[in-house]
């Protein structure tokens, strides 16, 4: 079985986010990049599928130099090979362009399944997996918490509002992972050491047949402006004996917070 995993380098979830001067992105100076947490479930699922069915696993990461570390992390966890998809024209891509680039990188690889995180931590658009499936013209299952693959088909349990839905389809397919799909393993020391010695393949726009076709000029969606969330208002302590305090609290929850 040939398994592809799409991973994204995102700012460490501990980062203190600041806006860039043009307010169209965050300020990346000094930011540490990590594998988007949902992608960790995709990596783990790929490793499990390989353990069960045998085969080959490849990580794809579209991004700048920050991609190297997350690809090495994926290799350290046990993926067989890594492809860094990178080009000077691949900047400020919208989700559709990202999906186009990934589809071009994956399409002719003979993959049986593509695993992604269901959303990229930070931008949280949840668009790329579905777009990727459409561009490849493959079936898809999103927000998956359980996956079985047998013969040429898959059975996936997806999280939907208040329930779980079970879908089936044929391979090749695109599956996007939700928390709960598995328990991601930590990379081992041997894995970390071996990952340093592996080659990371590079693919640019020309290699993908995308020269001049994908870039900020072709983007269908542009970020006009980013703003920081409003400061959280100061907490308030409600004084008085329990009866009056509880009454006052409920009153405020109704009138001010409007949550009950």
């Amino acid at each position, binding site marked *: 079985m040939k398994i592809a995993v799409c991973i994204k380098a995102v700012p460490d979830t501990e980062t203190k986010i600041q806006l860039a001067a043009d307010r169209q992105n965050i300020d990346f100076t000094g930011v540490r990049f990590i594998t988007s947490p949902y992608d960790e479930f995709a990596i783990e699922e790929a490793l499990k599928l390989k353990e069960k069915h045998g085969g080959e696993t490849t990580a794809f990461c579209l991004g700048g130099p920050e991609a190297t570390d997350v690809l090495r992390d994926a290799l350290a966890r046990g993926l067989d090979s890594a492809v860094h998809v990178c080009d000077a024209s691949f900047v400020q891509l919208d989700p559709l362009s990202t999906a186009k680039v990934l589809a071009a990188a994956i399409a002719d690889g003979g993959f049986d399944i593509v695993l992604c995180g269901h959303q990229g931590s930070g931008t949280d658009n949840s668009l790329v997996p579905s777009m990727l499936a459409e561009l490849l013209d493959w079936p898809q299952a999103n927000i998956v918490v359980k996956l079985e693959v047998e013969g040429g088909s898959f059975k996936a349990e997806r999280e939907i509002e208040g329930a779980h839905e079970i879908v089936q389809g044929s391979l090749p397919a695109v599956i996007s992972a939700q928390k709960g799909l598995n328990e991601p393993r930590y990379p081992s020391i041997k894995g*970390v050491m071996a990952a*340093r010695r592996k080659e990371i393949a590079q693919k640019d726009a020309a290699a993908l047949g995308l020269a001049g076709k994908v870039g900020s000029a072709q983007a269908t969606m542009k970020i006009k402006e980013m703003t920081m969330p409003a400061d959280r208002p100061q907490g308030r302590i409600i004084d008085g004996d329990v009866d009056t305090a509880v009454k006052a609290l409920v009153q405020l929850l109704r009138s001010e917070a409007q949550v009950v």
Partner: protein
Amino acid sequence: MTSTVSASEVLPYGEFLTDEHNAIAEMVRDFATREIAPKAAEVDRNARFPVETFKELGKLDLLGLIVPTEYGGAGSDYRSYAIAVEEIGRACGSTGLSYAAHCSLGTNPIKLFGSEAQKKKYLPKLASGEFIGAWALTEPGTGSDASSQKTTARREGDSWVLNGTKQFITNATHADVNIIMAMTDQSLGRKGISSFIVEKGTPGFYVSKVEKKMGMRGSPTASLTMEDCKIPAENIIGEVGEGYKQALTTLEGGRISIGALALGIAQAAFDAALQYAQQREAFGQPIGKFQLIQGYLADMSTQIQAARLLIYHAAWMKDHGKRVTLEGSQGKLYASEIASRVCNLCVQIHGGYGYIEDFPAERFLRDAKLCEIGEGTSEIQRLLIARQLGL
């Protein structure tokens, strides 16, 4: 003997820490932060050895970090090992101590001095976490003065018969493999000491007293008693009479790890103190705005940085095949003493909250103190350093 290494001999280091070291640091820190740190308060409170953590450390190749690959280890170097101890110690002092004892005391002597058969038999299991290791030199009557120990081993046909009690042995309650120093010829003093492998469950071998400790409470410390404990003749490590010499070499490497452990605890204390100083307000401002508190934090960070350079300098020397008798002792002495100071100031900066269990500050201080005692007290380190100075 020259007293110090001149700067030109060690600087520039070339690559002091490589990309691989940095990747290992990141991997261990991530695991330790997510899986070890959250349990630190509980293992301390209940004096519980987190054996499940050890199984995980085995799976991640951390127990076999410095075990050669042909025996199932990762075959990494001493800088990686110091990094691992520092990061684990930063998350939980107790786990760091048991980890360091397993690696540098319970495993390394077999790697350094064991026979091929012993290496094949024990190293893969010690590296995987199937076995836990302990190393026993100290006795009720003697610690620093190891040459006057009382445990004996006498040859009887195809066996060695051991008698005596070892005390304050890290991991003793859980160890599958115990390296025991014993007198094979009392009349020869330190030259009459040999070392032996005693497996758990050997008749006449048992855990006799589990200590209740001030700190490092999640790392078990116990006595081991041998009463006509018979082990196969091949369980001697190296030759008869080599035990003391082996112990000195073992401790020379071990000291780097205790220094790294002290460093990890000090770093944890500094991180906690810095964060607290920025959040706690008094007289209308964060206490970190007071110059006295700033002075404390400035000193703490400076001392930690100096300790870190000493420790990784010693590890770098060892990785480059140099003796570290001097550097290992200097690193261990300095790191352990500043760790106690840094942890003490961490309590001070926390005020009353530093003195209660709800914050980790008091645990850091209790844990750090051990580093000035174990694997050679500060006084013994000073003696060793003085000897290297030709005194």
